[in-house]
């Protein structure tokens, strides 16, 4: 056996090994970055199947999927990106499922002097707030929600020069958590996550201030593990997963389909 064919055999062994283990890759919106690892661990414990996780802004992930990213499941922070993927034949229509409703919060570090419960969104007009972190509205649903909420409270024009855009809602949270921005419009799931919980205070932006973040999941057409992918989505609907999602502030969506 030549060295080359030995190498090929070894490669086959590796790739074959992966497929047999039925490991699926889940691409998820950044607001899931705290909750999903726990969900995946619970899933592995229950089924013995492992899940690889990839996080990013929903727009970023959708664009990766369009360019052939080898993901099996897409958990978006909205419903538009999955629907566009379905329309383009890149995701499987009958797997579309709203797994949660995301909530937007106004978050400030613990040492901030702002009184969020009294001022609400108007706290952003305080002169001590020099930078306000939001996710990039160009490709992050939470960024669009933040922009819509600022417009709803009619302060967008007064604060727009102080906005800094995170690559996704996780980075927006990091900008304000690190003290580089004085306030941020971030995901409730991050505000409740262990890494941020004790470091700041938040005010939940009312649901009528921005279009509902109906977060939809979908199995991708190119996935070679359709069954395993569906099984994971099935798990997401189950009581264990919904309880875990609820502990991160996600509510269950109104059933529409």
């Amino acid at each position, binding site marked *: 056996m030549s060295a080359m064919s030995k190498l090929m055999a070894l490669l086959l062994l590796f790739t074959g090994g992966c497929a047999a283990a039925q490991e699926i890759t889940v691409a998820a919106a950044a607001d899931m970055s705290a909750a999903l690892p726990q969900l995946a661990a619970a899933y592995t414990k229950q089924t013995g199947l492992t899940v690889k996780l990839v996080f990013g*802004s929903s727009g970023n992930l959708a*664009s990766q999927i*369009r360019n052939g990213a080898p993901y099996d499941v897409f958990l978006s922070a909205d419903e538009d990106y999955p629907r566009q993927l379905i329309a383009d034949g890149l995701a499987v229509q009958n797997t579309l499922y709203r797994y949660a409703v995301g909530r937007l919060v106004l978050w400030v570090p613990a040492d901030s002097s702002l009184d969020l419960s009294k001022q609400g969104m108007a706290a952003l007009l305080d002169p001590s707030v020099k930078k306000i*972190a939001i996710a990039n509205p160009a490709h992050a649903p939470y960024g669009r929600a933040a922009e819509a909420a600022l417009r709803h409270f009619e302060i967008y024009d007064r604060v727009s020069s102080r906005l*800094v855009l995170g690559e996704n809602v996780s980075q927006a949270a990091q900008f304000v958590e*690190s003290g*580089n*921005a004085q306030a941020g419009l971030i995901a409730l799931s991050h505000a409740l996550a262990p890494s941020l919980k004790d470091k700041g205070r938040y005010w939940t932006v009312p649901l009528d201030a921005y279009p509902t973040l109906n977060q939809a999941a979908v199995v991708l057409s190119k996935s070679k593990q359709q069954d395993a992918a569906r099984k994971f989505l099935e798990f997401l609907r189950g009581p264990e997963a919904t309880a875990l999602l609820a502990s991160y502030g996600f509510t269950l969506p109104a059933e529409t389909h």
Partner: protein
Amino acid sequence: MNWEAFWLTVRLATIVSTLLVAIGIPIAYWLTYSRWRWKFLVEATVALPIVLPPTVLGFYVLVALGSRSPLGRWWESLTGHTLAFTFEGLVIGSLLYSLPFAVQPFAASFGAVDPKLLHASASLGHSPAQTFRRIVLPLSKAGLVTGFALSFAHTLGEFGVVLMVGGNIPGVTRTISIDIYDQVQMANYSSANWTALVLLIVSFVLLSVVYGLNRRPWTVGPWR
């Protein structure tokens, strides 16, 4: 094509590479002529940004120079704002990021000057400073242009540091590489395509200037 981002990036690269000529020449001079036994440690430090992931640099600018650190608080009391999300922050990040791309060509060209010329200059009564100005600098012209052009091009293509500390503010920190990234995320491939092409051409022209200046037409290959 986002011209605002393009000119912002050109401004950033011009400021950074000009400052690097000012900062880099003394460092390169010291690196070339110092006989200090621990000099290699300084050389390693200067070369660090070549191998260091830009995210490490971005992380330090964000955290070590953020408002939670003494250095960051000092800067804030001086200027009224943190380094992150500002053009100055990008300049400082880029200075570190592109330092070796200026210093190394400078030091290499200083070191290539024939020592006999330095001795001759000294024996004619020139001080080391005069010798450097009249002999070393003029003979190192190609190295100086190379260092300037490389640090300019390197800053032009900076992405990781800017993504981490920039905050994507139009006209302030949205550089051309960030703009391409955003265009791709939004699936505006034709816009990304044009911008990428402009960057490709600019980078090619810059590198051609560098290699053109350093070409040695009289080089004899081993096959002759």
